[in-house]
């Protein structure tokens, strides 16, 4: 066991997989000598060499597309977008090539696209977006979203070993804020499995990424202040979703709140809420509630950003109201 930050842990996951499997390589902008904008790949170039740590041209479409091509030949590329926002430039390659190839050609496309994602860092409209809903709607892609150092390493290793294109969400807000115990041995966190972070019988909160921590804080306060006990489910994977776990927790509590940082309308939460309702209608004591960012671009000035993104206070209130429903 070692104590690591979130970003150290995901880097550790990449490192171990590169040691284990020579077909794993990295490609992205400034990931070599510089070690990446968030320093996730610091030291990789020196250790693994230029051939496996590729400082690419400034070309997101080519980075993603070349990853598809390399994956088709049996390599396991791990591509970095400098910010998740820029994946819009590689969007076409992801949805047209990465996602549809296995269905059409029956050939695996084992690749990971790392997306440093989300807000709470005063990055403004072009460095704060959450891209997951777009890819969630695309058959053929997997999406993982770790919220702890433990899962960051374990999901990274699982993503690299997966034979499909995996979108790896790295929550920038957690990069250095989140520290935790990380086993030094080889382990993976299975893609498609969520985890209950807190048990409670009054309501269930389903969430992922940064908002897992806000929800946990809100749950503690709610417990202390009102004696209301919430289960907090960290989904960890968005595609595939851990529907069994969601079903279990929702049926136990009869009330569900979905929380994500991404915009509310058409977000992943919409699917989760719709599915829960279809699946467990009789067990619901209240409508499934949702919290997400307001449907506006993420603004630059801190007082504006604070209104737009979900907060612990907002989650607290929604949990409270739902428990009282």
């Amino acid at each position, binding site marked *: 066991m070692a104590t690591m930050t979130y970003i150290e842990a995901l880097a550790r996951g990449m490192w171990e997989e590169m040691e284990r499997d020579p077909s794993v*390589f990295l490609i992205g902008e400034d990931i070599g000598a510089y070690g990446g904008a968030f320093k996730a790949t610091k030291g990789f170039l020196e250790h693994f060499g230029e*051939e496996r740590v*590729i400082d*690419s*041209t400034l*070309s*997101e*479409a*080519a980075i*993603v*597309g*070349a*990853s*598809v*091509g*390399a*994956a*088709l*030949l*049996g*390599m396991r*590329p791990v591509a970095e977008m400098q910010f998740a926002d820029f994946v819009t430039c590689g969007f*076409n*390659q992801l949805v*047209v*090539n990465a996602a*549809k190839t*296995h*269905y*059409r*050609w*029956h*050939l*695996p*496309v*084992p690749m990971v696209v790392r997306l440093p994602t989300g807000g709470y860092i005063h990055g403004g409209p072009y460095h704060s977006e959450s891209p997951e809903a777009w890819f969630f709607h695309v*058959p*053929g892609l*997997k999406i993982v979203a770790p919220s702890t150092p433990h899962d960051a390493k374990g999901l990274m290793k699982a993503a690299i070993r997966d*034979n*499909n294109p995996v979108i790896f969400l790295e929550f920038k807000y957690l990069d250095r804020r989140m520290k935790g115990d990380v086993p030094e041995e080889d382990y993976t966190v299975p893609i498609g499995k969520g985890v209950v972070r807190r048990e409670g019988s009054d309501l269930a909160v389903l969430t992922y990424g940064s908002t897992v921590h806000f929800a946990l804080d809100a749950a503690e306060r709610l417990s202390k202040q009102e004696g209301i006990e919430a289960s907090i489910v960290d989904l960890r994977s968005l595609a595939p979703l851990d529907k069994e776990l969601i079903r279990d927790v929702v049926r136990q509590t009869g009330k569900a709140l979905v929380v994500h940082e991404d915009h509310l309308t058409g977000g992943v939460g919409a699917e989760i809420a719709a599915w829960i309702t279809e699946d467990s209608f009789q067990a619901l004591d209240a409508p499934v509630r949702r919290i997400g960012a307001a449907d506006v671009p993420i603004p630059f000035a801190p007082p504006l950003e604070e209104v737009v993104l979900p907060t612990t206070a907002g989650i607290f209130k929604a949990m409270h109201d739902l428990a009282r429903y």
Partner: protein
Amino acid sequence: MQKDETGQKHPAGLTREQLLELYYYLRLTRACDDAILRLYKQGKMVGGAYTGNGNEATAVGSSYALRREDYLFPMHRDLGAHLVKGQSLRNIFFQQLGRAGSLTRGRDGTGHYADPELRIYGNVSHLAAMIPVAVGAALASRMKKQNAVVLNYIGDGGCNVGDFHEGLNMAAVMKLPFVLIVENNQFAYSTPVARQHAAARISDRAAGYGIPGFTIDGTDVLQVFETTRTAVERARRGEGPTLIESVTMRMHGHSASDDASYVPGDLLESWRSKDPLARFEAVLVSGYSLTTAEKESTGQRIHDEIEEAIHAAMEDPAPLPETATEGVYAL
């Protein structure tokens, strides 16, 4: 030129046998396209039909420069390249007709298949989107020390999509074993090349990527072959990509449902005299004593092969509905 045992000079260093092979592939390509059009008119096709009439020398001549271990990433008018790289007529027609036994099991059509054994990776509809993918294949192939080259194609229209730029620039910077042929067939759907390019030669783009560029007569199968071979050899030596503009004419409409009435009649007429097949046949007749018997037997062989493939494709069942939702993800 190279001399064979009889002391005769051969163009492009090819033996008479090889020249006849080129001839066979040119004719096979044309005949296949014609058969596809017939099937379309008979209402037997699924989706549209795209032919490479006028493009045969470009597709055949260029892919003839590849070795078995090289990779082919063709575009929608490169049937000839599929064939030269070893694809069976069976697989071609199964794909066209969306059969259960096709390489994509009916999930995709036309040349949109992959055949990793033959190292053929077909196109997708989104123009230029396969360029970065092909570049990535070149990268992976080099990492795996395969000593292989990737040959990729794009049209005079498709080369204006951003992926062309990003992919070719990346390949150039990384000095990857990558050759890109721009098939300038004068039109992109209805749009003439002058509305897609302000430069006189598309190969002028090469300098901006720091790589060699050539503009060649795409109706001359030997010129296409020789230029591509030079580029492929250079790539194999580790000296990086080449951009080749192969100038030809799209003699048919964009697809079988397009009468191409926007193409000026005299333009079409002037290109008809450069028919890649007729040109090469004339070379063979005058320089290599191609006989009428040889011509006819080639025609007969092609006819039989195509009929057999079509027959097999028609016999093969449509894919089973219950397979439709399988295999979105790899295990």
